[in-house]
């Protein structure tokens, strides 16, 4: 068991980091905003933490806190223009934000190391710290889900006009979601910086954006557990499919098409809904004869 854990530790670490970023994406989608700014926010958090600690000698813990705060702030500022846009337009505008952050990271070589990357970051974050971070994030997300805030989010996602007519402030709630998303992205960006020795601008690009969005939609974008299931499944899949060697990505692609065709709401959400339906039907059948 211990051997198994040690052998797969890098995969597990990857899962923890990506699960955190997936929650950052999830909370925005939950309010019906289609913003995909997470990689840009994570990049800001990561570079901020790395620069503060390596260049200015600030205590790593303090720089993680600062990175989280800056992630929140940038995300809040970003939510102001994005609130004017809807649907795919919002997605593309936030994609533009990610690309701007990426190209500025490449351009500002003195600050970020440019395309050569930012190196010499001490490795201070291990599996336990990542796990602790994910637990905190999960707790926050689950509490939002369990309270009035979560229900307001759901109402806005399902029908903005109805939510507004019920007295729910659409812009206000989406700003809350953006702030939470920015905090999570900043936190996990900083954790990733202290986990991997080096940062490279392109690791926070279009590829990461697609990966994270896939985790959330694949697992289920409505339930709290969905992003976790999606991340676990898609991170583990290449490892499980290792015997297929160079056909791995092929299998991965085919599986994505097939799974979403049969479970269109995502793996966890569709199965949960089906189970609920079956239970309801069974209850009704039991009640009907009497």
């Amino acid at each position: 068991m211990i051997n198994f854990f040690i052998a797969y530790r890098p995969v597990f670490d990857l899962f923890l980091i990506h699960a955190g970023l997936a929650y950052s994406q999830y909370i925005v989608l939950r309010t019906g905003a289609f913003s995909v700014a997470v990689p840009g926010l994570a990049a800001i958090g990561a570079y901020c933490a790395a620069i503060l600690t390596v260049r200015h000698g600030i205590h790593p813990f303090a720089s993680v806190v600062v990175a989280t705060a800056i992630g929140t702030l940038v995300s809040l500022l970003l939510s102001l223009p994005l609130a004017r846009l809807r649907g795919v337009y919002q997605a593309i505008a936030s994609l533009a934000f990610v690309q701007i952050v990426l190209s500025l990271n490449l351009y500002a070589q003195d600050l970020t190391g440019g395309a050569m990357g930012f190196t010499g970051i001490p490795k201070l974050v291990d599996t336990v710290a990542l796990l602790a971070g994910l637990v905190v994030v999960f707790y926050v997300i689950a509490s939002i889900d369990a309270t009035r805030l979560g229900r307001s989010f759901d109402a806005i996602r399902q029908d903005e006009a109805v939510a507004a007519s019920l007295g729910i402030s659409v812009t206000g709630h989406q700003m809350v979601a953006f702030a939470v998303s920015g905090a999570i992205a900043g936190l996990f960006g900083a954790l990733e910086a202290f986990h991997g020795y080096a940062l490279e601008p392109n690791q926070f690009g279009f590829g990461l954006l697609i990966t994270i969005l896939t985790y959330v939609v694949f697992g289920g974008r409505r339930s709290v557990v969905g992003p976790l299931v999606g991340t676990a499944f898609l991170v583990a899949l290449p490892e499980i499919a290792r015997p297929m060697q160079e056909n791995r990505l092929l299998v991965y692609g085919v599986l994505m098409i097939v799974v979403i065709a049969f479970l269109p709401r995502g793996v966890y959400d569709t199965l949960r809904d089906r189970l609920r339906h079956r239970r309801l039907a069974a209850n009704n059948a039991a009640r009907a004869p009497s």
Partner: protein
Amino acid sequence: MGRAWRVFAQRGMRVIAQQLLNGLVVGGVYALFALGFTLVFGIHKILNLAHGAVFMTGAFVALYSVNAGLPIWLAFLLAMTASGLLSVAIEIAAFRPLRGTGEAEFGAIISSIGANLVIITLAQRISETRVMRFPFGTFPVVIYEIFGLRVSMLQLFMAACALVLMLILTWYLYRTSFGRQVRAVSGNERAAVLLGINPNKVYFQTFFVSGALAGAAGVLVGLAFNSIHFMMGEPFLLRGFVVIILGGLGSIPGAMLAGLLFGMIQTLTVAYLPSGLTDTVIFAVLFLILLVRPNGLLGAEAAGHIGARR
């Protein structure tokens, strides 16, 4: 002093004009790529993220046909047909099962990423991860001089191709019965079905046209930049986003205009700004335009939308 300045200014003007011309040609190709993208969005309301892979397939098919000894015009037609059919296959495999589930918007993102991955992996296997080019002389290298501007025959061919294909598309959409059906389904699918239009036939056509246009763009880019590899679709997908958003999603004239505009902005920023800032400028412009006009340049949601009457 005055004379020297005038000569300098004239030379500067000519450089700018040359850059604008180059940008116009590249922009035509962007427009071709984006037209298929925006056509599918206008009708399906989904983003087909496998569009870049279809584009790449067009270049691959043309290259392998030319290597097999076919003339370039035949290879070009073959590439358009093959990528059209591939696009239809993607529709049947990835998008059709999602229709009617109410989850098409997000589900299509996943399944088209899946399709993209499959096609790219296959292309990587076939090409053994090489960067390939058309054999020298596939397209005659002739350079004309018009009003002091240098234009190659390839550039003229690219511009002509883009123009002709755009005209054919406009004619098809606005002047034929098929086009009317396509626009009917895009406007209101339920009403169109009640009037006896078979939506699957419409989807087949739009995906074929969209794929064929992407394939044509792929061949032209392959000819012009001589760098054909399995990842060549991704940057075009990103730029395709910019173009269709600038023009207003689902708007055909918008995509054409924005494609040309984008090509010129890109060549000008490459020529006159520090190279690292090109992307920053392009995406900042996109962001600002969206703030001022949330539905794109030509987008009062319905105006110029393919569903709208012209």
